[in-house]
């Protein structure tokens, strides 16, 4: 089972498709969670996901807007999609019958 941060990265990278790379994934995660996402956490988790075979990364071409530096492009593998799907199913199943609004009010 993957962790929640790994799930956030897999979701962001899947949503971004061909445009999935470090800065874009970071932006997606910050928009979704409304919390800061450190580059350290992002890059070490990308390495972990790659080691598990959930993503593949490659260096893209340098672009002018990045000061002539390349992007680390990310592609989610079939195994990654399955892992993210399993996580989502588990969270959905675990949340069945629970209303957080009602619990918070009580």
């Amino acid at each position, binding site marked *: 089972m993957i962790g929640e941060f790994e799930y956030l990265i897999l979701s962001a990278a899947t949503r971004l498709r061909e445009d999935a790379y470090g800065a874009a994934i*970071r932006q997606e995660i910050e928009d979704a969670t409304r919390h800061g996402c450190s*580059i*350290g956490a992002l890059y*070490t988790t990308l390495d972990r996901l790659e080691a598990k075979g959930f993503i593949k990364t490659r260096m893209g071409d340098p672009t002018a807007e990045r*000061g002539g*530096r390349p*992007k*680390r492009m990310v592609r989610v593998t079939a195994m990654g999609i399955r892992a993210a799907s399993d996580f989502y199913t588990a969270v959905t199943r675990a949340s069945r019958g629970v209303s957080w609004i009602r619990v918070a009010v009580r």
Partner: protein
Amino acid sequence: MDPSRGPMMTRVCWQLVEILSLMLHPDERQAVRGDLVEFGATGSQALRDVLGLVVRRQATPWTHWRPWLTLASLVVPLGMLLSVVSKSTADGSAVYVWMYANNWKWDDLGNAGFWYVFVETVFLVFKWYLALACWSWTSGFVLGSISPRMIQTNGVLFFLMLLFGALVAAPRYFAYVWPFRYGAKGPVFSLVFYRETFPLIVLALLVVGPSLWVYVKASGRKGSGHSSARFCGLLEWQRCMQW
């Protein structure tokens, strides 16, 4: 964003980012710097981000047993032994250096006996220095070849260990096992230079120099020669045991 422009603090932060990011893999360094530029990070944000990444990168291997084994079996013993042997060599040779440097008489040059003793002394001291330099070279090679992921950390720890050994451990060790070693050599070691500075010069030239040089060379090699590193490691241990 051009990091070289802007307020002084921002420039300092970006320069620190530049230095810190040297500890990252070249591909990752480029990607991270690009991400920071694209994200419009300020100098302090960039510094925090890169520092966080470098710390994580250096800390990750320590969750496994191998770095601890390397630390306990190579980095600490070699660092301590080299600093102790270096101190011993420096003190041994300091007497001869003092004898010639502080008591030089030009008239002695015409004396055949002077030349006989002088050549013998130079040969003896050279042999000690060569042995110390070779041992340091081998230690640097072993440490530089052993773990590509731990190159920077092992290097820093090894040189910190040498420094600690030279400044703290070696003097205390000799004071404990050989308390009166300076007794007969009082005139030499009453001079601060021979007691404090000379051992540090020997350490810098014959230990730090050779080991750092080969450490950088060995760590830069692709697929560093593990078999030769193991062989050198065994030699190291044999020497440690003999010492």
